[in-house]
């Protein structure tokens, strides 16, 4: 089930919140959460839910062994078993088709390529179990004795299918002991409304632009290609960060404090900084569990760097363009590393902003085109070697037709809410006004978002034909 549909917002969620509010005590509240999380997952994956439960059981058991044989052979064996199992499941369900296709292409063999549908959220929950197992092995956390509590950590529906990748260590204490204050709930609900609005009012609308200019790249002009890529960059940002907002907001309503996953990434001044602000939970995962892997000897800095970026690319999807995309970012971070922070700072901020946005927008174009041929067409078009010239009337019409949408999207890339808060927090009257306004704005956003969602089931192609 996705968050941005009426069924979730007005049936699943209210029923869940009501049951949660009625349940007395953390134990019962946890039971409610697990039941609703399992329903939530089974709604989209009536069969693969057993895969997820198996993964939960394997990792839960492995962690118990790790705890029992702390520091001995059994510890290591259990750690390796669990991590190998996790990676194997991810490999089979996400990458087997891609790997076999490439083997076939390379050796002109004809191994049967299995048609395996990707289980929802497997990339996210696998990383959560891996971080849990390694943290147990490193004695950063104690293995969870209760399977129910472990299941709650893993399946908590706000973050289950699209992150953020929540660390067990960050919510360990809150599983059995959490207080839910009034301000937590109101903050959480507002955050959910904000996230839904980002997804439906901005991302979904921007996707129409991106789709008509990138989806039909063969017909786009040079300016059209850039316009489409910029719209796509913002689309993905609002889509993904909106989703994280909803997850963090719902978590807060339930009394959990998840770490932030986005920090206004387009405000970055270089690529290194971009990745400190974009999908933070993935970046810190790779930092903690992969970057320092001691297999590169003296070259471990650069070895670790490119390994991380290779894996970042692969993680995003089983296709070459994602691998290129990951290494592309690795390359720029490598270059920035060679230049050094001190020398980077000498460059005027203005130029660093232009440079980083330029690299990021091209990065999103690489991310968009799974078809490498079309990616080639994009590059040709974007750098002036396309067949459709610099600008055409469709670019102008689309831009004028969407001018307020684009302006709103650009403005929302700035840390607007934080700036307002910084000012209003200084005086009580301003703070109270701000909080009241936030309530009204959130309600309004939620209503408008819901209205727009009524249109989501319109299916013009059924009717549209000659």
């Amino acid at each position, binding site marked *: 089930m996705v968050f941005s549909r009426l069924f979730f917002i007005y049936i699943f969620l209210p029923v869940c919140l009501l049951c949660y509010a009625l349940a007395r005590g953390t134990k019962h509240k946890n039971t409610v959460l697990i039941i609703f999380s399992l329903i939530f997952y089974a709604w989209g994956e009536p069969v693969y839910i057993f895969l997820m439960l198996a993964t939960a059981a394997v990792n839960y058991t492995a962690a118990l062994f790790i705890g029992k044989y702390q520091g001995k052979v059994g510890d290591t064996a259990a750690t390796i078993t669990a991590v190998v199992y996790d990676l194997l499941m991810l490999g089979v369900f996400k990458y087997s088709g891609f790997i076999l296709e490439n083997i076939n292409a390379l050796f002109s063999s004809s191994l049967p390529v299995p048609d395996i549908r990707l289980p929802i959220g497997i990339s996210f929950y696998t990383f959560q179990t891996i971080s849990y197992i390694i943290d147990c*092995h*490193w004695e*950063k956390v104690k293995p969870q004795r209760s399977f129910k509590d472990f299941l709650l950590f893993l399946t908590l529906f706000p973050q289950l299918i699209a992150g953020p990748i929540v660390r067990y260590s960050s919510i360990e204490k809150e599983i059995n002991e959490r207080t839910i204050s009034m301000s937590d709930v109101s903050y959480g609900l507002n955050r959910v409304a904000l996230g839904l609005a980002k997804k439906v009012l901005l991302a979904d609308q921007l996707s129409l632009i991106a789709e008509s200019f990138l989806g039909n790249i063969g017909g786009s002009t040079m300016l059209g290609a850039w316009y489409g890529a910029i719209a796509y960059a913002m689309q993905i940002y609002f889509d993904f960060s909106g989703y994280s907002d909803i997850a963090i907001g719902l978590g807060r309503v339930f009394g959990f404090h998840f770490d932030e996953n986005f920090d206004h990434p387009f405000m970055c001044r270089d690529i*290194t900084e971009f990745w*400190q602000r974009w999908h933070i939970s993935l970046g810190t995962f790779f*930092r*903690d*569990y992969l*970057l*320092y*892997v*001691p297999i590169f000897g003296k070259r*471990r*800095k650069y070895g*670790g*760097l490119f390994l991380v970026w290779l894996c970042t690319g692969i993680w995003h999807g089983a296709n070459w363009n994602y691998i290129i995309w990951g290494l592309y970012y690795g390359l720029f*971070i490598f270059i920035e*590393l060679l230049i050094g*922070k*001190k020398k980077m700072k000498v460059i005027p901020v203005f130029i660093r902003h232009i440079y980083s946005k330029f690299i990021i927008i091209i990065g999103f174009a690489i991310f968009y085109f799974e078809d490498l041929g079309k990616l080639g067409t994009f590059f040709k078009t974007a750098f002036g070697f396309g067949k459709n010239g610099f600008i055409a009337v469709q670019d102008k019409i689309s831009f004028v037709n969407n001018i307020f949408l684009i302006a709103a999207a650009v403005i929302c890339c700035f840390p607007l809410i934080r700036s307002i808060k910084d000012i209003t927090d200084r005086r009580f009257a301003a703070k109270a006004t701000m909080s009241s306004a936030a309530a009204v704005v959130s309600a309004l956003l939620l209503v408008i978002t819901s209205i727009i969602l009524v249109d989501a089931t319109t299916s013009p192609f059924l009717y549209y034909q000659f």
Partner: protein
Amino acid sequence: MKTNEIIPRLNEVFRDVFGDSSISVTEKTTADDIEDWDSLAHISLVAAVEAEFGLRFKMREVSAMKNVGDMINLIAERGR
């Protein structure tokens, strides 16, 4: 090894790695205190510390170091 023996040597390593002679570390110094101390610089730092004190950190230790104090404890235990 004692903490007061370690700190001056460690300070040299920090100044070297970050190219900043104004750095002066204490047990409480964290990555937030030194602007350039990010995850990649951390690798260089760890390598330099290993060379200076003749020890090898484990991956879990590298990953878990939250401040200079953590580093000093490990050096005190195994460093030369």
